[in-house]
C-alpha cells in the first residue's frame, strides 16, 4: 500500500516564559522575562500507509497533540519534513484540507445553539459536497451512529455522547482519506466509548481511510490499532505492533477481586500480590495464565466481582523508560 503520511526528523520547539512563583517573582518577571525551550516533539520519523489505523500513545504532555497538529497542518514544524497525501501539511492547500479531518475530544466545531443538522449543511457547502454524496453520507452515519432525531435538537442540549456522535458525522461528511483524532473518547461513558470505537473500525473497513488516533485510554488503542507509536517527552520510543509492545513491556495483567467474605487465604501462589484488604485484592498475573488463575480464584474464594485489566498506559510507558526498553 502507498505511503500516505510521512514524517522525517520532525521537531517542534516552543519558547515559553518561565513563570516565577510568588509576588516578587511576578514583579521581576514583569521587567525581565526568562525563557526556556520546550521540546514538544524531537526528531520524530515514521511512515504510515493508506488504510492503517495507528495509535499515538504517551502520557499527558508527551507531545501527541502537538504531533497531530503538525501533521494536520495547524503548526509549522521547527525542523524536519512532513507530508500527508502528497501535500506539505502546513501549506494548507484546499485540496489537502478536503482530504483530512481533525476531531478533538473536548472541542466542538458544531454550532452550539443550533441543531447539528445546521452545522452539517454549512460543512456541505464549505467542502463542496454534491447532493448525492451528502445524502449517502447522511444515510451511512445515521445508520452507523444511530443518529435519528438527535440531529434536530440543539447541540447544547445533547448529552456528551450524542454530541460526539454528531461531531464525528460533521467531521466525516466530506469523506476525508485521513482522520486525525485527538482523544475522541475522552469524557464519554463506557458504552459510548465502545460505540465510537465500533464506528471507527467500521468506517475504516468500508472506506479504507487512514486513522491517526491519540488517546490515553488503553482500551481505545487496543480495540482500534494494530500499530502504535509511543511518544514520551517528545521522542518516539516505539513504533510497531501493539501486541508485541504489550507482551514485551507488560507480561502481566491485573486481576482485581471483590469478595463476599473476608480474605484470609494466602494469595501469593496465584501471582504477585499488589494489594490486599479485607474484601478486596489486586494480583499481577502473567498474561498466559490469567484465565487459569481466575478460574482457580473462583473456586477458592466467594467472589463478588472480578475484573481483569491491562496496566495503565502511563505504567507501560514508564516502564519503557525506567527499564530502558527502547525497541527501535
Amino acid at each position, binding site marked *: 500500500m502507498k505511503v500516505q503520511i510521512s514524517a522525517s526528523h520532525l521537531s517542534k520547539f516552543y519558547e515559553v516564559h518561565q513563570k516565577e512563583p510568588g509576588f516578587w517573582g511576578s514583579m521581576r518577571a514583569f521587567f525581565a522575562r526568562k525563557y526556556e525551550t520546550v521540546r514538544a516533539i524531537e526528531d520524530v520519523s515514521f511512515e504510515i500507509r493508506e488504510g492503517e489505523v495507528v495509535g499515538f500513545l504517551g502520557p499527558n504532555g508527551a507531545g501527541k497533540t502537538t504531533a497531530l*497538529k503538525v501533521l494536520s497542518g*495547524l503548526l509549522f514544524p521547527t525542523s524536519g519534513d512532513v507530508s500527508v497525501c502528497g501535500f506539505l501539511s502546513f501549506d494548507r492547500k484546499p485540496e489537502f484540507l478536503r482530504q483530512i479531518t481533525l476531531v478533538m475530544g473536548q*472541542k466542538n466545531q458544531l*454550532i452550539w445553539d*443550533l441543531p447539528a443538522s*445546521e452545522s452539517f449543511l454549512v460543512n456541505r*457547502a*464549505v467542502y463542496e459536497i454534491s447532493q448525492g454524496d451528502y445524502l449517502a453520507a447522511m444515510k451511512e452515519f445515521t445508520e452507523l451512529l444511530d443518529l435519528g432525531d438527535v440531529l434536530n435538537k440543539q447541540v447544547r442540549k445533547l448529552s456528551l455522547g450524542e454530541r460526539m456522535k454528531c461531531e464525528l458525522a460533521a467531521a466525516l461528511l466530506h469523506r476525508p482519506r485521513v482522520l486525525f483524532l485527538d482523544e475522541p473518547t475522552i469524557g464519554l461513558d463506557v458504552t459510548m466509548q465502545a460505540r465510537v470505537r465500533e464506528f471507527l473500525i467500521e468506517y475504516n473497513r468500508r472506506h479504507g481511510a487512514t486513522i491517526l488516533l491519540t488517546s490515553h485510554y488503553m482500551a481505545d488503542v487496543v480495540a482500534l490499532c494494530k500499530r502504535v507509536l509511543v511518544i514520551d517527552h517528545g521522542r518516539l520510543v516505539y513504533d510497531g505492533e501493539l501486541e508485541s509492545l504489550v507482551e514485551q513491556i507488560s507480561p502481566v495483567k491485573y486481576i482485581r477481586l471483590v469478595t463476599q467474605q473476608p480474605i484470609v487465604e494466602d494469595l501469593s501462589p496465584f501471582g504477585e500480590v499488589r494489594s490486599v484488604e479485607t474484601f478486596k485484592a489486586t494480583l499481577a498475573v502473567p498474561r498466559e495464565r490469567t484465565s487459569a488463575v481466575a478460574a482457580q480464584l473462583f473456586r477458592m474464594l466467594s467472589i463478588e466481582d472480578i475484573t481483569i485489566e491491562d496496566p495503565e498506559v502511563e505504567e507501560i510507558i514508564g516502564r519503557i523508560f525506567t527499564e530502558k526498553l527502547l525497541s527501535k
Partner: protein
Amino acid sequence: MRKFLAEFRAAWNLMLEYRIMVVIWMLTIVLPLIMLAAWLSIAEKGPVAGYSRTTFISYYLAALVVRNMTGMWFIWEMDSEMRLGSLSFRLLKPMDPIVHFLAYACSSKPFRVLILGPASLVALLLIPGLQWNLEALNLLFFVTSLVGALMILFLMQYTIGLTGFWITRSISVNDAWFFTYSLASGYLVPLDLFPPMVRDFLWFLPFRYSMSFSVELLMGRLSMGAALQGIVLQWLWVAGLFALNRWVWRRGLRRYSAVGA
C-alpha cells in the same frame, strides 16, 4: 458565494434564536439620542451652524438607522474563538474564516430592517418636516452607501480581531477604535459642527464613509456629483482596508502556525 449563503443561513437561524436579544440591543443604542437631547437644548435659542432642531432630529435618527445597519459586534465571537482554540477548526476547512465572520456580522441586518422600516415610517408621521430625502434614486444611493459602510466597518473590526493572534486584548483595541470612530465618523457629532479645519481633515478618512456619508445622503444634503464621488471614494477605502486585512491575516496565520494556539 454558495459557501457564504450556507454560512449566512446558519447565522440567520442562530440570530433568530436570539431575536429578543437583538431587539434589546437595538433599544440600548442611546448615545446618539443623548447627544440629540444636548443639541436640542442648545438649539432652543436658535439654529446651530445651520442645524435647526428638526435638522438635529433628522440627523440623529438617520444616524441610528445607519448604526443599526452597519454596526459590528462580532469581535466578541472572534476573541472567544481564539481563546478557546476553536479557531483551529476554521483553519482546517477549505474556506477562509472571513466568509464565516462576514455572514455572521450580516445576519441580524435583515431583521433590523424589519424593525427599522416601520419605526422610520412612524418617525416620518410623527415628526413634521423630517429632513429626509426619500426619492427613489436617492434611496438607491443611500442603500449602496450602507453596503460600503458595512464593509468598511466589517474590515476594520475583523482586522482588529486578527490582532488577537499577537495580543490577548483585541477587545481593548476595539474600544479604543470606538472612541475614534464615534467622533470622527459623525456618529456623535455632525461633522459640519466641528471647526472647519477638523472637518476638512476628517472628510476623506474612512470614518466619514462609515457613517456621515450615508447620513448626508439620507438627508439629501449631497448633490448627485458629490454622491457619486463619495461612493467611489468609499469603495476605494473598502479596497484599501481589504488589502490591509489580507496582509494582517497572512502574518497572523504565520504567527499562529509558529506559536500555536
